[in-house]
């Protein structure tokens, strides 16, 4: 365990050093959610009328949840990029913990995301979003977002290790863009046709978005009539979804990494 943590720390340092040598990429991935927030908020927001609520106050928690879910994409790219590099084979020939590389990668992602959540929240506040519940609610929401980010980064890492090329990872990563669309991140689910509503309400991103709305006292937190269980219990739903994803994908990704790509 102590070697896992110290080896994971070494890999985390590696990821941060890489980011330091190529800051443009980091800036790009961090400003993307802000751009999207402004776009959705002012382009769609002008056309959308939410009865009795401000759409932009509804949207900000959704965008935070969608950003958290983007761990899937960064995990996928990071793992797929590294998988075919010789340096991964060197890691496998060193007397180090087998889980340290995915752990260090996901932990580094968590750290950079945690930092990038702050400007996203500030832009949200400038757009009229408010934390109505004070510090405990805000910290609870941030905790859920980071936990979910960590969980989706492990899912992405596993998928990235499965892909045979960076191109394949790119296409798969592009496809993950629709996941927040099929959730309550950007739009309320109550108006969706029956089956689509069920899919959207069981989408973990919905649970996270609604949990953040719930914890910050924002519009759209309450479940409508006939809502699915995670939509009615968003905080528990978000925590359980994250725990489930971690329980499944941490062992899968670790084992896959230890095996290597060449079988």
């Amino acid at each position: 365990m102590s070697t896992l943590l110290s080896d994971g720390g070494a890999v985390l340092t590696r990821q941060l050093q890489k980011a330091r040598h190529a800051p443009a990429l980091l800036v790009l991935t961090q400003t993307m959610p802000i751009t999207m927030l402004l776009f959705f908020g002012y382009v769609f927001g002008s056309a959308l009328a939410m009865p009795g609520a401000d759409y932009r106050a509804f949207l900000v928690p959704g965008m935070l949840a969608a950003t958290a879910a983007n761990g899937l994409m960064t995990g996928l790219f990071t793992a797929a990029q590294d998988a075919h590099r010789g340096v991964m084979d060197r890691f496998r020939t060193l007397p180090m913990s087998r889980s340290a590389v995915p752990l260090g990668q996901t932990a580094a992602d968590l750290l950079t995301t945690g930092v990038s959540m702050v400007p996203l929240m500030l832009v949200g506040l400038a757009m009229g979003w408010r934390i109505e519940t004070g510090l405990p609610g805000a910290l609870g929401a941030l905790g859920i977002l980071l936990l979910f980010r960590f969980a989706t980064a492990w899912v992405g890492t596993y998928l990235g290790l499965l892909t045979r090329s960076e191109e394949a990872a790119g296409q798969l990563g592009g496809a993950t863009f629709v996941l927040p669309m099929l959730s309550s991140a950007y739009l309320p689910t109550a108006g969706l046709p029956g089956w689509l509503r069920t899919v959207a309400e069981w989408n973990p991103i919905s649970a996270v978005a609604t949990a953040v709305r719930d914890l910050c006292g924002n519009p759209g937190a309450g479940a409508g009539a006939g809502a699915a269980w995670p939509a009615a219990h968003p905080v528990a739903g978000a925590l359980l979804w994250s725990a489930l994803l971690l329980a499944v994908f941490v062992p899968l990704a670790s084992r896959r990494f230890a095996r290597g790509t060449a079988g």
Partner: protein
Amino acid sequence: MTTTYAVLSEGLEKNYGEVRALRGLDLAVREGTVCGLLGPNGAGKTTAVRVLTTLTAPTRGRALVAGHDVTREPGAVRRAIGVTGQYASVDGDLTGRENLRLFARLAGLRGAAARSRADGLLERFGLAEAADRVAGTWSGGMRRRLDLAAGLITRPRVLFLDEPTTGLDPGAREHIWTAVRTLAGEGTTVLLTTQYLEEADRLADEIVVVDDGRAAATGTPAGLKARIGAYAEVHVAARGAVAAAAGVLDQLTGGRPVLDEERLTVGVTVLDAGLTLPRIIRALDTAGVPVTDASLRPPTLDEVFLRLTRPAVGQGADHEEYAA
């Protein structure tokens, strides 16, 4: 130590789906020696290194590295080995110093110890000046040296070098060769793979010629060369003289000459170092064979493989016959 062999493998087999990359490779590398696995692309050299360095599990057979079974005790093997890959396996996005410090930490060194190991290796390989530049911007030769330094971070007892100089210019190659010889002089066992006869010749105490996933021949560089011999080729003036030339060469060498009636040539392997080109020409002249051109040259790598691995094809000779 219960064994004097740093690397020992018996009947090592590795299948990738339908492809049989290793078909029963036996190796025995004594401690403190340099062993060269020599073979063409696709012979199974890299697969052998991957199995021996715990990167991939063998399908059948077993292998001991530094006395530890690669399948059952991979952790103990990893503590004893250093690996330098065919493609510079350092992180091109990090600086040289960051790379070596990372590997030192992952090898179990802490804080100041990791830093001083990394700095010491940078110094030793003449990389101190470039150390704080991102490795992706370095020249091929420098990256290969960094890769070699990274392979030494664990102070390995057994060092694996997979084609350490492929793609390098002669100067950079010489640099790597000197480093390998120094390491061997310090007592590190080295197992290297190469496509270059010259490289195996310069570095290895023993050469294993690998072909088709098996050890086709094993011996010292001098011993293998003696078995392979030189190659004589004679051009004659007319088609009718080809058979006559072959007869003379057959008598001189005891080998089996290869006749080419289109090109008007006869080729034969010459194992006897005393059989010089003037003697061959004189014998042909005495027999009245009209020679237009003649050459005697050391074997090319292609011929080494033909002779040592495919006795049934090419010249149709059986090297066991010569070795006896």
